[in-house]
């Protein structure tokens, strides 16, 4: 309670108000920082590719682009799909949101499946020279992020069924969506580096 003897013109702000609403700021700061890990890997990839005396492991002179390209198209388009999911949530169309959101999850899962198929068909391993290590490190680390994204989307989908959720804002959904765009952008750079720059 405010004391009696002080002037009423002064704006004393209550402290509890300031507890809420920083999640998005924090999450954006985190993503900026997270992108530096990928940046470090990309720079490492570039330097090693330019300087390494032997790049591809023995018996390999390149890497197939066709299947990864399909994967890329799916992942990139899922970034547009998730945008529409978010939009339906803003329009308070909860079932529309759930449906489109689930489609995004399916597209993400297909990407992981495609990655798994690609990995299982490759003739080189993590230990096969610098390229082998770099290939599995980059795609694996990115794949972990995709899986995290799908899990987070599942969490948001579950939360949409809780009563009275999403009344005070959709920060969780917005953050996950932002994360998904982030994963997408990283993949595009990765695709250019590994598959196109051969």
């Amino acid at each position: 309670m405010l004391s009696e003897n002080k002037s009423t013109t002064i704006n004393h702000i209550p402290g509890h108000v300031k507890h809420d609403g920083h999640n998005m700021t924090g999450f954006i700061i985190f993503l900026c920082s997270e992108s530096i890990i990928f940046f470090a890997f990309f720079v490492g990839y570039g330097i090693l590719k330019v300087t390494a005396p032997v790049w591809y492991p023995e018996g390999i002179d390149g890497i197939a682009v066709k299947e990864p390209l399909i994967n890329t198209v799916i992942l990139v388009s899922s970034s547009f799909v998730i945008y529409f999911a978010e939009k339906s949530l803003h329009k308070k169309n909860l079932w529309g949101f759930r449906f489109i959101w689930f489609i995004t999850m399916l597209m993400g899962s297909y990407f992981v499946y495609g990655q798994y198929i690609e990995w299982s068909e490759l003739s080189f391993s993590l230990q096969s020279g610098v390229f082998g290590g770099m290939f599995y490190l980059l795609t694996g680390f990115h794949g972990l992020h995709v899986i995290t994204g799908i899990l987070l989307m599942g969490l948001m989908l579950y939360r949409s069924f809780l009563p009275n959720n999403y009344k005070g804002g959709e920060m969780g959904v917005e953050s996950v969506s932002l994360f998904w765009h982030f994963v997408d952008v990283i993949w595009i750079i990765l695709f250019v580096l590994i598959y196109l720059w051969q």
Partner: protein
Amino acid sequence: MTIINYDQRLVKSKNPYPKGPNDWKRFFSFNTDAKVIGIQYIVTALFFLLLGGLLGMLVRGELITPPSDLFDPTVYNGLYTMHGTVMLFLFLFPMLSGLTNLLVPPMIGAPDMAFPKLNALAFWLVPVFSIILLLSFFVPGGPASSGWWSYPPISIQNPLGKMINGEMLWITAISLSGISSIMGAVNFVTTIIRMRAPGMGFFKMPIFIWTVLAAQLLQLLGLPALTGGAIMLFFDLSFGTSFFRIEGGGDPVLFQHFFWFYSHPAVYVMVLPVFGIFSELFPVYARKPLFGYKFVAVASFGITILSLVVWVHHMFYTGTPMWMRNLFMFTTMLIAVPTGVKVFAWIATLWGGNLRLSTPMLFCLGGLFNFIFGGITGVMLATVPVDIHVGNTYFVVAHFHYIIFNTIAFGIFAGIYHWFPKFTGRMFYEGLGKVHFALTFVGATLNWLPLHWAGLLGMPRRVASYDPEFAIWNVIASIGAFILGVASIPFILNMVSSWVRGKAAPPNPWKAIGLEWLLPSPPPHENFEDDIPTVLNEPYCYGLDKPFVQDEQFYIDKSFKKH
């Protein structure tokens, strides 16, 4: 009801972070209060200062005689590696996180950090990775022994072929430390950007807040690079990849780039908050406004930006091309400009001031003196020809100890003494504090000043035995190290006994200006609670007739009330 200006729903809503038990037990629980977390950090860090100091004294004990007689050289390698690692990752980083946690919310008028749970999680990672790191003493093959920078190819050798080895535990601990620091950095930056008191624009923030913001942005930009490098090093060590293995086509120098891209800025992550402490304390104890407030504030960001482009100066002698050496010599020397701005501002603040030589001020003055000395040797080392001559000698060791202990740790001690009454509600014993300062200053000078000579004469670092011509410098240095060990006794005595039975502290014992000094000692759970003040001026208007906050008398009266 007189409260009408804000959203009633939020005021009535239950405080989401309830106050924990108000006794000693809260320090051993998952407490989300930044003030509790701050003290948890600081006490943990001080424990590891003792451990790291003990390891350091073992190193100095070995070096007091030229032959390697106290330890086997292999054990010695483990000792200095762990000394450096404990001091940096278990003492300095947690200590600065602790001070930041204690000071940031009260200084900007926030009730707590932006993400209290994340904050507590970041702290509780510290004991986890500390235990992982210390366990490495007990695995076969002993702890990591490749120095704190862990360069391959030495670091990726695994002679015993065991999956769990000292180096592997070292990388795990460092990565967890990195995760904890990133959690902290996200939290600090969000708090400073979003939760400042009304009226506190960027150019009314205390310099400490400026430096914390600069330092934590540096963490966010630099640390992930080291994490990336550490992951690759881990794969090389444990899963047989060859990112850094020459025989597999890899490049060991690449790791050095990853490592120093973060670990050079890491020095600024540590030193910037200490610059903040200097900038806070000199005006208080000289009773004068901080000279050139805006320049000092902006210089922090100058340091942040420049420090991201200087890392190759650690690699002048590892096959770096000449153009790169020249470029990084130039950027490294540029850093002397913003730091010089700060040093001149402090000296101008002291000039003609009414100096009060209490313990915190003595530590500040000692730290400033040592920083100028360490800065000069820093400029020497930035010069390529000098660096190639003295690189990897004791000159480098002496230089960075002048920064990391004689400046940063001095600043930390100054900060601990200065804010001790505020956060414990007790006054410390001034006499014991002065003894602590005298022993620390004498010990530190004896320890590291002579090593400059040893280094210039050519004594290499990281060796257990050395040529007898360097003996005299090493004997003096070892005596200094043992004096530093003794210096911890008055410090511990002072802290423990003052906290238990010291005189009760008034809200503002140093007559300082700053939001934290308008709070009771110790501050209540949510600092200003429902009366967050409106800031009018920057907090350095000593002797000027400029009010600091609106309705200052109300807060002063309130701070004297028991809560």
